[in-house]
């Protein structure tokens, strides 16, 4: 046993270093990933990156009646599930996700909140004595211990009303079927459950409630954001079977597609937004509201369905009666909703070419309280509209009838057709004099989070990647398209991620992890799963492939895996197959390694062709010799007036005194004439040309092979950018010498002049060497002025972003 274990350990080490050789230190940076790191193609998933002819996935449909008790903050629901088994496997049981169980005091997530990891930890330990603890973290623990969060599953019954056996394993529940479910068969059963909603600001998580203090400026009352709120079928896939990874709070979720009918019973004066389309508008909306909604379908700008004044009046009214809002959604992988009597509601119809893949009209809508005005009515629904436009151009027509943005405590979270975009985003401030203003940061933050979360409806709500395993597949790809959308929102719109130089600090750090790391194990989640993949794709698009090849491949991936479940390898393979470019070196460097980009330009040597003509070459050599400093002793002798012996005795002056070693001799001239007779014409042309050959030496300091991009500046004032593909490193990924032929004299060379490769150290990117000012030096030399609204003595009102004098 010991010997076997030792061998396995050795083999594992070797397998972890597939590009490292055993007989020398040469590394094959271009070794292929196929069939080594990537799984073998099969009937479900092809080597092209496309779904195979035997691809399948499960179908799970839900019919749910849910009731919100506002006084106790408790949800109670009955959920009828119809599970269709499309797998070539017999199923004797089904697994469901119970995400709310994450907040049970005895859950794996809570019990493992300790030292050293990347998750939430309330205690500062690790030294000889604990360092301290925050009051709010104690409050959070107390609430979790005392309040009894998590699902209460009160019954699971089959179609005849008979009880079914079920077993709860932390955040998972196994339901044992009465009969084995064969391929193509369906089973229907009902789950009754309830649970206590969280106060989002105290417990965290992705849903819950937020209440406002009633003041002159705010109207009190609460906003409910409800998500991950019902037992949802776990994924059963072709490559993993049941996905049994427990929910620890970070790796979000993977789910199956299905159709939903959900009836939501809330206080009568609530306004409800949800995944899907409202089915009973006549019962829950006034005639006027329904007329406004119809107008908004063809309006050029958002139309209020519930006006700010109506929302303000609504939140102060209160009622004991209830209303039921009914929603229907098709082909979605989840269902979320929000409700409040504080909600303003605006809407506008967004036209698109559905191509038969989606509707030709999508209703972009926003729900928000008066406290978020005037930012939300100005920017939210328009940001939704812009997101649909840009994202669809990079993927497929938006496939659903609605796209909604909800303001609340949750700072940013996505579900099909509905997103939560709140926290501190987009709430104006009132200064001590009562002036209402908002900052560039508030505006940027609001637009950015809405683009990001609406973008998630494409990735992963439609391109259904496994968030629990590979966060980068949805956060990274989505942040990449978010970057493209933000860059198209407004010139110089400040963006959080996307420009390559912003990732260099992370990539040089000695604590970096590969992007291909399981979600719950990642330290520095934002840099690893959001920023680095975003920047990798920006570089792939702008520098490696170019926009035409990249965009076609990226769009093909989205369309191939629309309403299907891709793995990382399906993405990698599709990008290569469609672009026609081998990218294994790129995936290895950016996604599988902790190498960083740092190429140094070590040396530049200029060479000119030897014409072999002694009249030319001897004169050139003489000129070079004479350009060297004269002997210092000879200079000093002359200055002192010392006269040489030969000057004083002319009889010693001879032939050699008048002819130096550069004098052209008759034999040299004859040899040249003989050479000319033997040369082919093309050889003679080269010898007589005035072209120069430059030798450039590079060192790969960071380890990650990348294209070498050079800007040559010439003595005539012109310049040229030359792009050398990454394959220049194939013989030696550490050092390379490359030559450049030109008929112009080069006076300087800059490596990566457009800052497009994330080169971490630019101090060695210049010939001749140049010292760039540091960020601190630039700060010292610049003025630090503000041009913001408050500094301009301007203000806005709740009704408009038009500025007025304070």
């Amino acid at each position, binding site marked *: 046993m010991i010997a076997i274990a030792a061998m396995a350990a050795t083999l594992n080490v070797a397998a972890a270093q597939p590009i490292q050789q055993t007989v020398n230190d040469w590394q094959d940076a271009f070794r292929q990933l196929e069939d080594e790191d990537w799984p073998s193609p099969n009937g479900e998933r092809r080597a092209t990156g496309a779904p195979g002819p035997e691809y399948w996935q499960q179908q799970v449909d839900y019919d749910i009646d849910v009731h919100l008790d506002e006084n106790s903050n408790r949800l109670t629901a009955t959920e009828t599930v119809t599970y269709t088994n499309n797998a070539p496997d017999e199923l004797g049981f089904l697994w469901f996700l119970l995400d709310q169980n994450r907040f049970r005091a005895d859950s794996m997530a809570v019990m493992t909140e300790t030292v050293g990891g990347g998750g939430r930890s309330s205690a500062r330990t690790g030294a000889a004595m604990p360092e301290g603890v925050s009051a709010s973290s104690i409050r959070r623990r107390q609430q979790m211990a005392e309040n009894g969060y998590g699902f209460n599953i009160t019954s699971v019954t089959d179609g005849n009303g008979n009880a079914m056996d079920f077993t709860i394993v932390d955040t998972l529940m196994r339901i044992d079927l009465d009969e084995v479910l064969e391929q193509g068969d369906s089973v229907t059963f009902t789950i009754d459950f309830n649970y206590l909603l969280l106060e989002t600001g105290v417990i965290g998580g992705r849903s819950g409630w937020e209440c406002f203090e009633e003041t002159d400026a705010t109207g009190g009352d609460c906003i409910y954001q409800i998500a991950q709120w019902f037992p949802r079928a776990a994924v059963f896939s072709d490559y993993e079977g049941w996905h049994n990874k427990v929910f620890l709070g970070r790796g979000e979720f993977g789910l199956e597609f299905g159709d939903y009918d959900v009836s939501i019973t809330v206080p009568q004066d609530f306004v409800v937004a949800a995944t899907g389309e409202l089915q009973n508008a006549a019962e829950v909306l006034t005639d006027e509201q329904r007329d406004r909604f119809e107008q908004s379908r063809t309006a050029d700008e958002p139309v209020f369905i519930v006006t700010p004044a109506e929302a303000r009046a609504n939140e102060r009214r209160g009622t004991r009666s209830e209303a039921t809002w009914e929603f229907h959604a098709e082909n979605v992988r989840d269902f979320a909703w929000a409700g409040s009597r504080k909600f303003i509601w605006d809407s506008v119809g967004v036209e698109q070419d559905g191509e038969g893949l989606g509707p030709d009209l999508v209703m972009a809508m926003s729900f928000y309280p008066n406290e978020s005005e005037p930012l939300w009515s100005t920017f939210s629904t328009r940001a939704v509209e812009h997101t649909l436009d840009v994202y669809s151009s990079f993927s497929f027509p938006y496939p659903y009838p609605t796209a909604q943005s909800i303001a609340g405590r949750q700072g940013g979270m996505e579900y099909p057709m509905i997103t939560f975009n709140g926290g501190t985003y987009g709430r104006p401030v009132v200064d001590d004099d009562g002036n209402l203003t908002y900052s560039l940061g508030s505006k940027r933050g609001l637009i950015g989070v809405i683009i990001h979360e609406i973008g998630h409806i494409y990735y992963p709500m439609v391109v259904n990647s496994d968030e629990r395993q590979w966060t980068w597949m949805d956060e990274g790809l989505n942040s990449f398209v978010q970057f493209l959308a933000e860059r198209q929102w407004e010139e110089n719109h400040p963006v959080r991620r996307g420009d390559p130089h912003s990732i260099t600090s992370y990539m040089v750090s000695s604590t970096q992890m590969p992007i291909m790391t399981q979600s719950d194990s990642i330290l520095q989640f934002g840099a690893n799963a959001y920023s680095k993949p975003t920047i990798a794709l920006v570089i792939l698009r702008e520098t490696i492939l170019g926009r035409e090849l990249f965009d076609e491949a990226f769009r093909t991936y989205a369309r191939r895996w629309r309403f299907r479940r891709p793995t990382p390898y399906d993405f990698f393979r599709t990008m290569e197959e469609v672009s026609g470019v081998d990218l294994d070196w790129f995936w290895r460097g950016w996604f599988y390694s902790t190498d960083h980009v740092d190429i140094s330009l070590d040396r530049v040597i200029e060479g000119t062709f030897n014409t072999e003509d002694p009249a030319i070459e001897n004169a050139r050599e003489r000129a070079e010799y004479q350009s060297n400093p004269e002997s210092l002793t000879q200079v000093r002798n002359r200055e002192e007036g010392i006269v040489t012996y030969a000057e004083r005795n002319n009889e010693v002056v001879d032939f050699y005194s008048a002819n130096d070693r550069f004098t052209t001799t008759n034999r040299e001239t004859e040899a040249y004439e003989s050479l000319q007779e033997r040369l082919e014409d093309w050889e003679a042309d080269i010898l007589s040309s005035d072209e120069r050959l430059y030798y450039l030496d590079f060192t790969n300091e960071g380890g990650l092979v990348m294209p070498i991009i050079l800007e040559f500046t010439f003595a005539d004032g012109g310049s040229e950018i030359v792009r050398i593909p990454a394959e220049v490193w194939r013989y030696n990924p550490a050092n390379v010498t490359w030559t450049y032929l030109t008929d112009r004299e080069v006076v300087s060379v800059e490596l990566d002049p457009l800052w497009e490769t994330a080169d971490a150290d630019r101090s060695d990117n210049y010939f001749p060497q140049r010292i760039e000012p540091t960020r601190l030096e630039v700060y*010292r030399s610049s003025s630090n002025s503000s041009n913001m609204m408050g500094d301009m003595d301007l203000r806005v009102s709740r009704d408009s972003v038009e500025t007025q004098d304070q």
Partner: protein
Amino acid sequence: MQIKFLIAAALAGAVLMASPAFAHRQHTGVTEVNINEQTQEMEIIHRLYWEDLMVALDRDNRDEAAYFASEEGLAEIGVYVSELFRFADSSGLLFETIYIGAEMDGEYAWVYFTAPIPDISAGFAVDNDILSDHFTDQTMMTNLRFSGQVRTALQGPGRRQAIRLSFD
């Protein structure tokens, strides 16, 4: 003064507040320490999200741009950051830093300090608690660059104690 004493002293009076970790909003920051051969000084540059910094300074109801442009705001930022970033040699002797200033750039706040170049750069101790007094999930990454090498101190939830870094 030894760094351990300062850590204990700072925590003794701390009133810690927590904010929930949003699904898509990370509380992170980066500190870069470099030697500038031109100016013959050590540069210490912190990159934070200005929105988080405003919360930590209890100024989140202020116009942040005006705050960063004011003498009062710049002074408060300098005091706050200098108290929570402690950087010492291998014996625990703190480097005396000089606050240069701060600025906003997009979503970032950049905060600048300098210090004399250390005589010996073989070992250091870093304790970077910036913003962790307000966000329990705050992660600060400190990169030290000396002689072409990078050593990283990563501090975050459950790993707040000072970290020793060696360039041997």
